[in-house]
């Protein structure tokens, strides 16, 4: 992160968002009771598993193309809660993945769920499967499994791209209840059209807090709310400030920075400010400082061999 001009404010802003989250986690750990609104789609989990149990058909869980990142791990965490219920009723599960490192983490986490529930013998290592890391081959493989095993419930959560419709429609074709949540915003409309229940946006991240009521997760969710309010405040305040500035303050100097030199304001005849000259925008686009003073010395020999 660059510290020149107003650049350090950006670091402070991200730190502030992180502080909101950590502060509220601490607050929740201290026993503070926090409220979470109902999240449509999550109430369907028990219904979907119940149906699978009655029909003796598997529950399918797919995190799309998610990798070993916050999205992928969040998806597997939600699948862990679903598996917990499935494990109690001995309902078979299928967790299909497109990323080998996430597959490793998922295998461990799902195995843990069966152990915690006291039924380790019910864990079938082949119920968690790596399919392929190629997008459409993955879609073909998941669709094939849906048809062959006639899954009764399909949970599609994580980074879903164009393949989402292939999987969601295949699940619909075999009469499965589909609960979906895509972090890829351009795919959410297709999931809304194709699935029975869809969690929108960061309802995906709120799901684990809602399901588990773990203080860490609930506190984090409150912190996330604060962070969203901070973003909203920045946009509203900056919009108001910028609007007033544009309406009432004129530009009387122009910022000029020639390559390799320090920038400076040069006086100009008063005129209306352009949008990129408004003060709030400096927060987002800090100015580059002038050349390094005093300049650095050169090394004696030029390095080769890259960065190793």
């Amino acid at each position: 992160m660059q510290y020149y001009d107003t650049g350090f404010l950006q670091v402070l802003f991200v730190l502030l968002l992180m502080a909101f989250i950590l502060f509220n986690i601490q607050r929740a750990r201290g026993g503070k009771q926090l409220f979470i609104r109902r999240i449509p789609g999550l109430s369907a989990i028990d219904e979907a598993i119940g149906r699978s149990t009655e029909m003796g058909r598997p529950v399918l869980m797919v995190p799309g193309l998610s990798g070993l990142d916050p999205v992928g791990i969040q998806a597997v965490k939600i699948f862990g809660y679903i598996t917990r219920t499935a494990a109690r009723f001995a309902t078979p599960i299928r967790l299909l993945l497109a990323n080998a490192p996430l597959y490793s983490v998922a295998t461990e986490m799902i195995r843990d769920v069966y152990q915690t529930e006291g039924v380790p013998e019910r864990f079938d290592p082949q119920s968690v499967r790596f399919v392929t890391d190629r997008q459409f081959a993955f879609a073909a493989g998941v669709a094939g499994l849906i048809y062959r095993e006639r899954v009764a419930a399909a949970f599609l959560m994580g980074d879903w791209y164009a393949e989402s419709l292939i999987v969601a429609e295949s699940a619909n074709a075999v009469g499965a209840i589909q609960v979906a949540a895509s972090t890829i915003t351009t795919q959410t409309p297709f999931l809304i059209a194709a699935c029975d229940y869809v969690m929108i946006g960061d309802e995906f991240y709120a799901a684990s807090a809602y399901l588990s009521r773990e203080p860490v997760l609930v506190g984090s969710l409150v912190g996330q709310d604060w962070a969203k309010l901070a973003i909203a405040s920045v946009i509203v305040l900056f919009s108001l400030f910028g609007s007033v500035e544009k309406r009432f303050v004129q530009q009387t100097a122009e910022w000029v920075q020639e390559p390799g030199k320090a920038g400076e304001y040069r006086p100009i005849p008063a005129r209306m400010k352009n949008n990129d000259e408004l003060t709030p925008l400096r927060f987002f686009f800090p100015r580059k400082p002038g050349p390094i003073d005093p300049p650095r010395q050169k090394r004696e020999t030029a390095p080769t061999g890259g960065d190793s």
Partner: protein
Amino acid sequence: MNLEHPTYVFIKMTAGVLATVGLYSVLYRETKLYRFFEHMFLGLAAGWSLTAIWTDTLKDQWWGQMVGKIDEQTGAMKEPAVWPWAFVVPMAFMAYLIFSRKHNWISRIPLGLLIGLGAGQTFLNWFNLYGPQMADSVKTIIPTTFSSLTVPPPVNGQPDPNVYLSQAINNLIFVATLLCVLSYFIFCTEFKSRFLKGMSTAGRLVLMVGFGAIFGSTVMTRFALFIDRMYFVWIEWLWRSVLHLS
């Protein structure tokens, strides 16, 4: 004979057509034909991943750094060998212990390291990714002139810095929409006032408008892909290659 030879091109196209028919058969139902091509597709994908992982990633990113490079003409060293890259092997081996009943916990070490690195990158990149989006959401919502409702055509090609009434209204709608949708994603407060409840409900409805717009603009590109495929099967293969019609 090279890869452009008409006989070979025809064989290759026929293979593509068979694959098209085989995979499209799932639209009717999951048949043995689909299952055959699905498994072939998965096998080819796994094989290709195992090939590309070496040729595209490990060969240069890992092996090339570990053993260095020699100029083949002169035999002189181009890049020195950095032997500590060899530590990646036992590190990766730890992940493979996931299949051990007794020592599977060890796999969490390399995976934890990857998770940590990924998490760190999230903090580092956060503002670079979302800062520009926040900047673009800061709008001027007070008109600077009431001389015209809409933006007049540019004079001498010069951009007009004024904010006209229609622009200010649009900007206000933009900011209001953003706030309504953000309020829908507030999870830990029960909205008691009718205003806030209304904002949240409006947020969900306006999200549907946004989703509809994405849906509408994507449909055409998806149909273009389908038309492209049909062109391949009917025109390029059947019409030109099989029936030899122009």
